[in-house]
């Protein structure tokens, strides 16, 4: 591998962009593929399949034996609202290998000691997004339980093609949320991507169990998502 390629792979990871590396097993030559090169008809289907599944593997491209490796940025969970659910989620997310960010403009909610390794921001979510943009490798969990805090991050997450967008609240409050978001100009297809009520239905009965249901739902979305060429 060339040092220049290695630097490009590392830079992509730092910038939270996906990178595909195709190694020719006979010549040892390495080729890096980014979004624009996915239109190359010879390699596109094998590369897109690797991107979609996140799985590396051997393939034949143009009569050559190659190994396709997929470098994806670490999945990240952004929780809006620093309550008990986010607190439980922070511990579990770290164990499951997710980077975790918690944002709550109500500064009084945030006590760093209770959130483990998660990055905490007592600011408006949109200010944090300017420095740390949402992306296709991010899951957004709106759990502030306050529309004035949760709604805007939901619209931003949908626009940024976050692989998971979920909002806390029962069916009734979700119906109201749908009305509000439609009023903000969010289209129906985007609104339909919101997991509301958030989490898998495991009859969760307390904040820790809700956190389990959210994390399980996020993992399900991560492992079954459609990664399009625009994500890289």
């Amino acid at each position, binding site marked *: 591998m060339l*040092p220049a390629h290695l630097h490009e792979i590392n830079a992509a*990871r730092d910038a939270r962009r996906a990178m595909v590396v195709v*190694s020719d097993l006979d010549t040892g030559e390495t080729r890096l593929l980014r979004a624009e090169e996915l239109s190359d008809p010879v390699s596109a289907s094998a590369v897109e399949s690797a991107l979609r599944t996140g799985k*590396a593997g*051997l393939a034949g491209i143009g009569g050559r034996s190659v*190994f396709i490796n997929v470098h994806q940025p670490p999945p990240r969970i952004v929780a809006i609202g620093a309550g008990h659910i986010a607190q439980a989620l922070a511990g579990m997310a770290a164990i499951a290998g997710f980077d975790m960010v918690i944002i709550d403009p109500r500064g009084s909610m945030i006590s760093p000691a209770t959130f483990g390794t998660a990055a905490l921001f007592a600011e408006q979510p949109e200010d944090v997004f300017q420095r740390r943009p949402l992306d296709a490798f991010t899951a957004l969990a709106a759990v502030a339980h306050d529309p004035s805090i949760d709604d805007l991050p939901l619209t931003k997450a949908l626009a940024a093609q976050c692989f998971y967008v979920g909002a806390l609240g029962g069916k009734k409050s979700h119906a109201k949320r749908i009305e509000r978001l439609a009023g903000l100009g969010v289209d129906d297809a985007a609104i339909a991507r919101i997991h509301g009520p958030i989490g898998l239905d495991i009859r969760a009965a307390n904040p820790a169990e809700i956190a389990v249901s959210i994390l399980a739902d996020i993992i399900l979305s991560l492992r079954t998502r459609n990664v399009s060429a625009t994500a890289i």
Partner: protein
Amino acid sequence: MPDTDPLTFAAEWHADGRDVAIATVIETWSSAPRPAGSHLVIDAQGNFQGSVSGGCIEEALVAEASDVIASGKARIAEFAVTDDTAQNAGLFCGGRIRVLIEKLR
């Protein structure tokens, strides 16, 4: 979260002027503990970072990497992670893996 990606170490070592080999799992059979795409990076002194087998065959790989660094020629090596090896390393892996070893240059 600190960046513990083996490829970050490879870049740092290379910048320090050290000779570096990158090993990549390209194929696995049976219950190999680390999936295809996993990296181990090795320098000429035998220092390594990352994991391709969870500890079973890393030592054998370091020897292969030393040859690759000396010759500059990439090679593909196959390792059987026997149950005995696995248990000696305190693991329950088993299976076989094929690894591409190339020099960074």
